[in-house]
């Protein structure tokens, strides 16, 4: 199976997973709407890491990301009674998180302080790090820090809209269709933004790409 086929299969698997996830979420959401606050705790535990990841990769700042993630959950909690189920809870929640983050970034355009998360080597990342570190002939831990910094800098060269689609698709593995619902634009716009963003990033990260 070539790379394109394996990626297509991965997206299909993700899509099927999302459908079953949406059904499970609907039960929790209904419980919250009926006044069960503990059910919202379950939704927080389920989505907090993913939401934080999206926001962190958009802002490259862990302190802001923690606050924005909490703010997104609070907004979702406050307006959950208005959630009618027209989209999945996942899409609705991500839309709140993305909009909250975009508003924050627009207000703080000049704030360019990067702070990094722990790099937990797991799965395929370990192998890739080994490859890259071997190429650079640098100490591995030093190399990882440098790579984190370069990736964050490269993402920050993109506009907010382009960065959003790259993070949602390439980092979080969300389909074009779902991204279109989250950012409220057409699928074509998502693909176009992604294409442009990847061209920019290719130029920024050419030292690491072979």
């Amino acid at each position, binding site marked *: 199976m070539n790379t394109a086929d394996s990626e297509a299969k991965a997206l299909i698997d993700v899509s099927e997973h999302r459908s079953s996830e949406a059904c499970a979420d609907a039960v929790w959401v209904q419980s919250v709407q009926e006044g069960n606050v503990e059910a919202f705790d379950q939704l927080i535990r389920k989505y*907090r890491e993913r939401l*934080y990841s999206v926001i962190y990769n958009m802002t490259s700042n*862990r302190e802001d990301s923690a606050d924005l993630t909490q703010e997104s959950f609070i907004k979702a909690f406050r307006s959950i009674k208005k959630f009618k189920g027209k989209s999945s809870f996942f899409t609705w929640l991500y839309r709140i998180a993305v909009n909250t983050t975009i508003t924050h970034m627009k207000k703080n355009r000049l704030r360019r302080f990067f702070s990094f998360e722990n*790099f937990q080597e797991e799965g395929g*990342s370990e192998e*890739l790090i080994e490859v890259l570190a071997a*190429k650079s002939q640098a100490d591995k831990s030093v190399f990882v820090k440098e790579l984190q910094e370069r*990736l964050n800098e490269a993402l920050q060269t993109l506009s907010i809209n382009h960065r959003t689609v790259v*993070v949602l698709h390439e980092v979080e593995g969300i389909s074009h269709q779902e991204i279109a619902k989250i950012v409220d634009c057409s699928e074509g716009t998502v693909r176009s933004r992604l294409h442009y963003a990847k061209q920019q990033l*290719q130029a920024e990260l050419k030292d690491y790409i072979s």
Partner: protein
Amino acid sequence: MDTDNNKSEAPVRLEDLLKLKRSEKPSEVFWEKFDSELRAKTLKALVDEKPSLFMRAIAYMAPIFPVAGVALLVMVFFFSQSQPVNFNSEGSVVAHVQTASQGDLLENSYLAFSEGPARYLKEEISVELGDEPNLVKVLSSEPIHSISNGVRYAVGNGLASMPLRNNTLY
């Protein structure tokens, strides 16, 4: 050695680099602090309920309340000013009756003077009858008096009649 060479020759794509960002994760300590902060904020959100539409409408219109209040006060002031009543320096009403016969005392007659419509006391005063019916001359300068219903009396610099309501001068 061959394995190392193979690793260094493996192609690296942009997508691979971006996937590395999935490995950037906070520690458990971070999540414990995050959860406790979020719990506190969620409880606060429960307590700080959003005001009802009615209350929000009141809050929206609040800036015009002082203006409306001032307008109302001005109206009351001008209405009260339209009544021919003099005020002395203490702010109480003193009636000046121009005509009267000296020496007559009206029993159980009272004049009402008040700073506001609701204040009145019953007090006998010395009055004198004038030529016109029900005219009395006030001799007492006591600030507060009361008057019985239906008595017409002269006040101010000229003759004027004041209808009385509930034993109170308006």
